[in-house]
């Protein structure tokens, strides 16, 4: 187990290091500098470049940048004059986190529920219904879903507010829009996983003990099919994060995703860099925690066995 943790830890740290390096040099490759606009005189430009350290050789800038990163300093936003990137993240993260958690919880309950119901009603109406929901959720891009939701439920029939993120009512549409692809993913996964478990020998053993239907369902079938769900929690977090770019900017949620999209449009490179690195660290940490958790929950992983069966 210790060896497993250390291995995962090294890979995680390497990932973050590679990401930071790639991002740094990539941004430096971009021709032109952020102060090239006509509103800057040569003098001001030189001053700003000195202020941000852009006049130093690139390798030196790299080491300064990496040093700053270790101290948690992500630089200063160019678009929001003088505002530290770290402060922007601090103020925007809670909204994104809130939305993300809402979406994840919704998706878990609805997705798992749908998947279980589908598996229990194999090849019946409910099953086909959940397959259709899953296929639609997977194949329709989230910005289409989000903007159609907004159009139908906020503009055509003004049931919910169009945008912003201030009350519970404001959270509903963004949560649904963000959760939908994950609902689809979870219900599909859960269905397959449940069907595999239902057909497994150990469920037959459980039945041969005379256990009641609900006992088998909860303590054997759902329990065992939920475990593999942990393994897609990492990719799910990543896709929620990508979805948050779209959903937050469509519903004007003042979260990280909204800032990220904005920073691309305003070419605020230090904000892009800061956010990318923050995302990287966030995801790598989540993946690391999930890996460890999986090892704890599923006794087979610890021995390096396979995950199914």
């Amino acid at each position, binding site marked *: 187990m210790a060896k497993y943790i250390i291995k995962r830890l090294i890979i995680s740290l390497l990932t973050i290091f590679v990401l930071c390096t790639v991002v740094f040099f990539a941004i430096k490759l971009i021709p032109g500098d952020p102060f090239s606009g006509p509103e800057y005189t040569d003098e001001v430009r030189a001053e700003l470049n000195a202020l941000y350290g852009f006049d130093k050789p690139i390798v030196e800038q790299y080491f300064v940048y990496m040093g700053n990163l270790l101290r948690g300093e992500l630089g200063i936003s160019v678009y929001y004059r003088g505002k530290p990137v770290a402060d922007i993240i601090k103020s925007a993260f809670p909204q994104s986190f809130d939305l993300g958690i809402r979406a994840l919880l919704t998706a878990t309950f609805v997705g798992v529920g749908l998947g279980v119901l589908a598996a229990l009603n194999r090849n019946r109406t409910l099953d086909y219904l959940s397959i259709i929901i899953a296929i639609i959720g997977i194949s329709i891009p989230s910005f289409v879903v989000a903007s159609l939701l907004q159009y139908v439920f906020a503009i055509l029939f003004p049931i919910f507010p169009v945008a912003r993120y201030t009350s519970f009512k404001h959270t509903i549409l963004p949560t649904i829009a963000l959760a939908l692809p994950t609902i689809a993913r979870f219900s599909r996964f859960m269905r397959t996983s449940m069907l595999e478990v239902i057909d*497994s*020998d*150990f469920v*037959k*053993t*459980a*039945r*041969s*003990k*005379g*256990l*009641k*239907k609900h*006992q088998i369902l909860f*303590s*054997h079938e759902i*329990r*065992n099919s939920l*475990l593999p769900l942990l393994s897609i929690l990492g990719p799910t977090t990543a896709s929620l994060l990508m979805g948050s770019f779209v959903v937050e900017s469509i519903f004007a949620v003042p979260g990280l995703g909204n800032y990220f999209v904005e920073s691309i449009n305003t070419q605020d490179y230090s904000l892009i860099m800061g956010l990318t690195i923050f995302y990287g660290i966030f995801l790598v940490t989540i993946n690391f925690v999930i890996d460890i958790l999986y090892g704890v929950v*599923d*006794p*087979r992983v610890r*021995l390096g*066995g396979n995950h199914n*069966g």
Partner: protein
Amino acid sequence: MNELLNVEHLSINFHTYNGEVQAVRDASFRLNRGEVLAIVGESGSGKSVMMQTILKLTPCMLMGGRIIFDGKDITDYTDRQMQEIRGSQIGIIFQDAMTSLNPTMKIGRQITESLLRHQKLTRAEAKEKALELLRQVGINNPEKRFHQYIHNLSGGMRQRVMIAIALACKPKLLIADEPTTALDVTIQAQIMDLLARLREEVGCSIVLITHDLGVVAANADRIAVMYAGHIVESGTSDQIFYHSSHPYTRGLLESIPRLDAPRDAQLTYIGGTPPDALNPAPGCAFSARCKYSMRLCRMQAPEAHEIQPGHFCSCFLLDEEAKAVREKTGWEVLV
């Protein structure tokens, strides 16, 4: 009353993508209390399906026949009614303990689950009983094993746990579905000895499903031979081993490799493959592979005849009229 299980004219079908499979046809057998009945047959002969369908563990359909267990007709029992019988009165051991035990549940809980379901026990009492059971099936250090998962155990140990689960509530009948097939030969004997010992202790009857005649010879009181869903011959061990009267049974016995055979002797086998269970040809299922086969065998399925008390056989060769064929082919009646 000495009879525990009586199965009469049982027929079982199941669905596949390709159509309806006739898994079991007109099978009858009975089992007395304290007896060990071995059901012998090759893979796919329907022996497992038959026993599991009796417990309603398969999605197969009963097409006819009657099942009487412990004096009660359980043929039309619902799943809910069967739940009361499964685990408490009939226990079952499956072939592969590795897949038949829940990999993510502690061993202890898998045993107490059954105890708590059928007996009014507190958790502590159930745990005490489970530990006792683990000890009984020969697992040392049960306190430690109780909190382990199956992948911590060896194959033999897993099968012991499986046996502990099946016998947890002291059932009247234990179905052992190929209990030793997945095990090393040395472990096989241990498990069979354990089953024999536990039968004495618990006082249950056993239906032993196997394709290994060696296992049967040492352990069974009675034997039923199955071929392509039919019970072709049944009787006591002696009757089957020394007075076998069905060409298939005889073929099976002759196929056992012998150590005292000459070194250059060919191994004996039964030519051909079992028939297609999807659309079986009329007549005796074995007739296509049977070198004694007569024209009648291709047209009509033989009925079971009691050729000796308790010895049943379904074959036209036993008929008076088949004398000429018997003489021509050298078939001896060993009664």
